[in-house]
Each structure stands twice: as C-alpha cells, then as structure tokens.
C-alpha cells in the first residue's frame, strides 16, 4: 500500500487528466473530431493565468474564471472560423487544421511570451496536515475545484435542457435537428465547455508547476490515452481512464520507477487487445 501522499498525488494528476480528457471527449462526441490542439489551448490558458494572476495581480479565482471563459471563446472561434466550414469536407481537413494549430499556438507562445519557464505563485500558500498526510493547500484546492467542476458538468449534461439537447445531438444530430435543437448552437456550446475545461485545468496546474510553450503535449497525450482506455465518445470513460492513468502513474512510479511511463501504454495496449472500443465504448456489431 503506497503512503497517503502518493494517493494524494494520484488524485491531483487524475484531476488534471480527467478535466482535459473529458473536454476532449465532449467535443468529440458532438463534432466527431479530436481537437489535437486541445493541449495547446491548455498551454495558452496557463500563460493567461501567469499574466493575470502572477503578473497583473488579479485575484486567482477571478483569473481562473476569465481564463476558462477566454479559452472557451477561443475554442468557439476555432470551431466557427475553421472547423465548421471544413466539416462538410470530411474528417481529415478539420483534424489537419487542429494539428496545424498546434504549431501555430506554440509558435505564437514562443514569439510573444518567450521560451523560458515561468512560475505562477501559489494561490493558497501553506501546507495542511490531515492525519498522516501532509499536503499543500494548493493541491487540495486543485482537487476540490476539479471535483466541483466535474460534478457541475455532470448536472449540466444530465439534468438540464441544454444537456439533453447536447446528448440528443451527440446520438443523432439529424433527428435532434428535427426536434428543434440548433446544431450550430450545440456545436459552439460544446466547444466552449470543452475548451473552458482545458482552461480550468491550466489555471489549476499553473501554480503547481510551471508554464512554458511546450507544456501542452504531455497532457494531450495522456488525455488521448485516457479516452482510448475509457472509450471514445464517453465522458464517463474519460473520467475512469483519467483516474486510471493518474493513479497508476503515481503508484507505478512508487514501485517501478521510470518504467511507469511505459506501464500507461501497456494498459492501453491491453485494453485495445481485449476491448478495442474502450471500457465504456460502444462495441461494434
């Protein structure tokens, strides 16, 4: 049994993977494409937090909300300006555009924000002791906000009219449109929520770690792994996949060292071999 600190760490890591993966899955389930620039949106969100909270001294929670909204709006702009006009041309053009955006955003960040690592101070400095566990307040905050956001997302999707419209549109866009669900609005809304989740993840992570133009790749790959494990198109799958990766990551470091990185991929291969559609994916006929 690993010590409590390792559990806590797994929880922190899981929170971030879950936030990013579920944003990615949400967008996928409605639009049918994977936004490969999702990690770079996260990176831009981290820079936003740096400039607002660390540099301009705006209250952390205000910065967090602004970051989430700003990244969400950027996502909507991408969706309206690039992905939607390209959608009729098939699957590849929008995907290629999101791959192009990776380069574009990294280039912009390097040119305008600079390549050096930037630090964001802790929003809630200090350390708390809970029984045998000593943990920084920052990590507690991360977990608390992540859980709150995911619970909020759950209620939004399953208990509101908007969520119903989203689910309907995900299952059968054509029929949903017959019942008066505006596909355009649903697309924008989903993209907003999905990208805002990346923004929130960035805002939570920035004070824990550091910010530079290349921090987007690792979370993106982990999120992709999480959704492959959980099943494409299932938010619940993203949550389970993210948690599995987060906890297995930290536990295996504790027991195995560097091979833990490979262990994540072994999980993925095992899932692919025995249940190719993912744990919560819809099996094929």
């Amino acid at each position: 049994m690993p010590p409590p600190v390792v559990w806590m760490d797994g929880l922190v890591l899981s929170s971030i993977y879950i936030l990013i993966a579920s944003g990615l899955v949400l967008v996928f389930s409605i639009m049918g494409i994977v936004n490969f620039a999702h990690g770079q949106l996260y990176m831009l969100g981290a820079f936003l937090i740096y400039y607002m909270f660390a540099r301009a001294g705006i209250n952390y929670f205000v910065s967090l909300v602004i970051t989430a909204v700003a990244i969400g709006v950027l996502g909507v702009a991408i969706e309206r300006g690039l992905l939607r006009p390209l959608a009729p041309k098939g699957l590849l053009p929008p995907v290629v555009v999101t791959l192009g955006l990776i380069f574009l955003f990294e280039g912009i960040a390097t040119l305008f924000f600079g390549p050096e690592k930037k630090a964001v101070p802790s929003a809630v400095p200090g350390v708390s002791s809970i029984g045998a566990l000593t943990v920084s307040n920052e990590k507690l905050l991360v977990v608390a906000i992540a859980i709150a956001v995911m619970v909020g997302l759950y209620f939004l999707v399953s208990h509101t009219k908007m969520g119903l419209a989203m689910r309907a549109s995900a299952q059968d866009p054509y029929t949903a449109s017959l019942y008066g669900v505006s596909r355009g609005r649903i697309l924008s809304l989903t993209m907003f929520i999905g990208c805002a989740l990346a923004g929130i993840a960035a805002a939570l992570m920035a004070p824990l770690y550091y910010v530079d133009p290349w921090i987007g790749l690792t979370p993106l790959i982990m999120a992709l792994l999480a959704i492959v494990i959980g099943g494409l198109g299932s938010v619940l799958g993203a949550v389970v996949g993210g948690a599995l990766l987060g906890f297995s990551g930290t536990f295996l470091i504790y027991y195995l060292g560097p091979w833990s990185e490979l262990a994540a991929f072994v999980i993925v291969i095992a899932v692919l071999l025995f249940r190719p559609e993912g744990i919560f994916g819809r099996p094929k006929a």
Partner: protein
Amino acid sequence: MKKVIPPAVGLVLALCFPLVTTDPFILSLLIEAGVWAIAVMGFVAILRTGEFSLGQAAFMAIGGYASALVTINLGIPFWFGLVFAGIMAALVALALGVVVLRLGGIYFAIVTLVFGEIVRIVALNWQGLTRGATGLTPSAPGTIHIGSITIDFIASKVPFYYVIVLLVLVAAVVFWRADRSRLGRIFRSIASNETLAEHMGIHLMKYKVIIFVIAGFFTGIAGAFFCHFTLFMGPTTFDVWDSIMILIMGIVGGTSSVVLGPIIGALVLSAGGAYLTSALMVGMKPLVYGIIVIVVVVLLPGGLVDLGRYISRAPRISSLQGVKRHKKRGN
C-alpha cells in the same frame, strides 16, 4: 505514352542534378527531403483506404533501429540492413494493422499516435538494446570499388543522393502501380463507402493491412537510410512530431496523387523548413508551418499539387474527401 514523359523528365532532371551542384548543404536538404517523400508516400497510400495514420514515424524508428542494430552488432553491410529494416517495419505494421485497423477512423489515428509514443518509450528504456537516450551510431555505407571506380559515402554526398533517388524511384513505382492497378480501385472503394465495398465482396481488413504493410516496409527503409545518413539513431530521432510532419507534408503536397504530392510536400516543408530554421527568428518556424497548413487546408484542399489544376481550371478532386468519420454501428 504521353503520361510517361513528365515523370521521365523529372527523373532525368533529378539524376542530372549533381552536375549542377555538388554542394553538400543543398544535397543534404534534397536527401532528407527524399527520405520524407518516401514516408509521405506511405502515409498517402494508407490514406487511400480512408484511414490516416499518425504513427508513420514509428515505422521509421523501427527501421532505423533495426538497421542500426544489425549493422553495428552483426557487422552486416548497410544494404542488407536496409532490407532488414524494411522487413522488420513491415512485420510490426502487420501485427499492429491486424489489431487496430478494424477500429478505423479517428480511433485508428489516435492509436497509431499512441503507438509512436510506445516505440519512443521502449527505445528510451530498453537500454541493453538501444543504449537509451545515448542512442546508436550506425556508420555510413562502406566504400564500394567497381573496377577503377570508387564510391565513397563519406567524402561526398553524391552517392547518398543517388541511393535516395533510387529508393524514391522504387517506392514511387510500387505505390504508383498499386494505385493504378485493381488494388487502387479497391482502396478507393473502401475509402468511398466501406459498408458497400464489404457487401460487394471486398475483404476490408485484407486490403487495409496490405497497404499498411507495404507502407510500413518503405517507411522502415526510409528511416534506416536516414539514420545511416546522419549517423545517429536515438529515441527522439523519429517521434510524434515527425509523424505529424509526415501528415502535414502529405496534405500540403496534395494527396490526389500518390507520388507527386508527397515529393512536392517533402521538398517544400523539409527543405523549406531547414531554410526557415536558418533564416528566421526562433519561434517563427512553427508559426509559419501552422499558417501554411491552415492556408492549404482552407484555401487549397487539393494541396500544392493542385495548383496546376487550379490554373488550367480542370475539375478538381479534393484529396481530403472520403475519409470516414468514426464508424457507429448498431449492435
């Protein structure tokens, strides 16, 4: 007969190029572009069946390691290493293809991307075999003596240049023939309507795996050639970014032709990219790449190879069409 003329002229020009200049810088750029062109041809050939792979660089890595390991440890000559690399990459493609090609669509793209990461991590951690991050240092092909002629791969880049021209030619002929033969018709059927193709008697997996393996074979050879050219093979020599670059070169070049598009894409982005690194501000390179990709996808969906068609106003075929969405099937 008419159709043979443009490629023949292109080949003659390529063969005569060292008469114009033997400048090692320019030749190196062209040699590397040739390597990428082969990999991109493989990517585009797979795209013909409607699947797009984001893990092609992993096959280059497998080929590179295969060749580096056998040439270093067993002292086998470069030429056999090249073939061995192709076979190894093809075998891995076979194993991977059988497992993941049935998933199709975006799922296939994600899994191949993940596969690329797996190869990198194994290469990094299997230090007994790959020496981890230190990497392997394969050597250049040995000097060849044919009568009084000596071909030295170290003193000049010209022999490398001719080898890559030959490899590109072989790959081009294979991919071109595959595209022109019944296989090509089958691939297009699958890409256009998988369910229909299957109901008309086409074994989807068989043909998807065939092209995936052929592409893997040549991509592996390209990777092996590259590592003997730069004399280094490490875990990051071919990584996720390279897989994405292969895709981007394919799209920018244009996927409506299996040969010309990849060659144009590789020349423009690989050789052009090297220029960008030397001439522009840091951070500008990814920015310019990003802009090129978006401009091409939005304004010129057929890629650069389509520019000629634009001008001649011939009917345009969007090369990006026909890639299916993730298949949803009832139970």
